[in-house]
């Protein structure tokens, strides 16, 4: 564990050093830019609120991907699951938020979205478990289905006539708003994500099914021979993965936009794959990597605002960081050893 942390921190430092060369090339003094952007992010109330807001959907999609990865399943469908979660939330909010108050509405949104996401993921999960269909392809393709479904609703039945036919639903009733933490702009989606990450970790470590998942993740055939129902395990894990990723859709529309609108996800589902991968699919680790990616996004924006850097430099910066962090895995997988003379 400590080796992992050391290598990860080292690779981030390396990215910052390489990035400083990049900054110097476009005429920005990195010695000045890093501290000022860092201060704006970490020592400014708006700054850390931004980080937490940006981190929330990444944490939930990242956790979803990480859950599937426990059985070496690739859930590429977090984007679609997020869209489906948002559709489920929107339907519930539009139907019921006028007649129910927040005490009923919020649990309904949470459970409804979770179930809807799970049912959506049950399609690739069932195909994988009982027909051996590759989940990478089915989850990926279902993304386009979910996004098209959202478009269909936004251009059709759900379009708000009062917004001059622009593709967005009307605003939800206030009882469907995720409450904010204290007087901040951060909604309760973040604590929810952290709680789910911890619960996942406990589930994997301290329950029978968690044990079965770990065994099956290490060796599916061995799990089969041990008499575990691996088909059921694959199904449950992929369904759970989709259900958690779908919650990201709920926190975005109920926590921030308070309505469904086109393109509301900024590739959070796909970025979730990176979040999970960077954390080596560790459910607690995704909390850290979701935060790291939030820092990259928000820091990139601040670099633009403060130094008028073109967005391309920001993208390069993000690329550098991902490159060094993922590249550093080499040092985790292989270690130099001094050969001891016999």
């Amino acid at each position, binding site marked *: 564990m400590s080796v992992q942390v050391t290598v990860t921190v080292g690779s981030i430092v390396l990215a910052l050093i390489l990035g400083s060369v990049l900054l110097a090339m476009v005429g920005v003094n990195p010695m000045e830019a890093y501290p000022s952007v860092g201060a704006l992010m970490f020592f400014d109330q*708006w700054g850390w609120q*931004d980080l937490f*807001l*940006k981190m929330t959907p990444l944490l939930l999609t990242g956790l979803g991907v990480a859950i599937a990865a426990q059985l070496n399943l690739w859930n590429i469908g977090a984007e679609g699951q997020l869209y489906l979660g948002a559709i489920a939330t929107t339907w519930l909010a539009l139907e019921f938020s006028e007649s129910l108050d927040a005490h009923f509405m919020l649990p309904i949104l949470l459970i409804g979205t979770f179930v809807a996401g799970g049912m959506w993921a049950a399609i690739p999960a069932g195909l994988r478990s009982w027909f051996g269909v590759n989940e990478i392809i089915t989850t990926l393709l279902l993304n386009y289905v979910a996004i098209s479904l959202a*478009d269909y609703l936004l*251009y*059709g039945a759900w379009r708000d006539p009062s917004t*001059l*036919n*622009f*593709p967005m639903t009307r605003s939800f009733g206030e009882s469907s708003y995720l409450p904010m933490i204290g007087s901040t*702009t951060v909604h309760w989606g973040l604590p929810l994500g952290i709680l789910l990450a911890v619960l996942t970790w406990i589930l994997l470590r301290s329950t029978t099914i968690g044990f079965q998942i770990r065994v099956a993740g290490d060796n599916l055939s061995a799990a089969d021979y041990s008499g575990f129902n691996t088909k059921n395990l694959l199904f449950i894990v992929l369904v759970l993965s989709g259900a958690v990723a779908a919650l990201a859709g709920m926190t*975005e529309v109920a926590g*921030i*936009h308070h309505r469904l*609108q*086109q*393109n*509301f*996800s*900024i590739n959070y589902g796909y970025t979730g794959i990176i979040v999970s991968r960077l954390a080596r699919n560790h459910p607690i680790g995704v909390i850290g990597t979701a935060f790291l990616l939030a820092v990259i996004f*928000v820091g990139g*924006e*601040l670099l*633009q*605002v*403060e130094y*008028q850097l*073109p*967005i*391309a430099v920001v993208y390069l910066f993000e690329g550098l960081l991902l490159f060094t962090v993922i590249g550093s895995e080499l040092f985790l997988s292989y270690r130099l050893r001094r050969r001891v003379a016999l």
Partner: protein
Amino acid sequence: MIKHLLTILVTLMLWVPNFASAADPKVAFIYVGPVGDGGWTYAHDLGRRHLEKMGVETTYVESVPETDSERVLRNLARRGYDIIFTTSFGYMDPTLNVAKQFPDTIFMHASGFRTHDNMGNYFARMYQARYLVGMVAGMMTKSDKIGIIGSHPIPEIIRHINAFTLGVRSVNPKATTQVIWVNSWFDPAKEGAAANSLMDNGADIVTITTDSAAATQTAAKRGLYSIGNDSDMTLYGPEAHLTANIFNWGIYYEHIYNQVKNGTWKPSSDWWGIETGAVDLAPFGKMVPKNVQDMVMAKKAEIVSGEFVVFKGPIKGQDGSTAIAAGAFPSDQDLLSMMYYVEGVVGDIPQ
């Protein structure tokens, strides 16, 4: 008596909002695409550079996703920018939310319809220029088929497609326009592919409601014609680019800047027409004959003088029924919510 006067004075002082009394307001822009899109965002950035040339301090953030704009706007507001221009429809509600949080900052939102004590909205009557470039297309087409790459099927875009089609058919009643939707503002790959499909289908001129110059590049490659949008796209295919309907935002941004600086700014919904110069045509390509140019410029003069109005009945809907009755002028509200095609457009509005 004096007491009454004092009360009135104090009330007045409290009532008149004290906006950005700073002598030199700082101006920020957020863009939905990259500055280098060569179209929509580029046109806004030319406006920003116009302010810079006047000595105004400006900044911008490019490629801001609409759903992430609230945080970026809050960042700009707390960094002390006095006027913030938000240049995409999807920034509307985020702009309103942030405007409420920062009452001393002035927000101007392009292409929307919300206002607040410190938020106005603005657009320009691009449909007037669309009609004119439609005339160019109508006279230049040989196949009588003109392709349009649509961004999002929203009223603004439907209005532009209709104005363009009216322009085409005012000079060439046989011609039709065909629309392909790409559901994106800026996606050069999709726009290029859509241009190819339209041309495969017989269109010899394509125009766009999207932001990139991909269609012009595709037309140039295939030896056909294109009409650019938002910015002069001649550079991307001089032999293909007939003309373009363009924005000159600098004129408008200077106007708003001066209002704020002089303390006369009030929230409003501005919709500037071609007579202000905020919309115009790009220079004609060499292949556009003199008589075509003259005819179009004559019509432009008629629009400027108010003698000719683009949307004036009788205008037929796509199915031949009456969309706008003879002699009727639709209100701005009707234009802003236009959701039907006029006669001559082929295809359906996605529902």
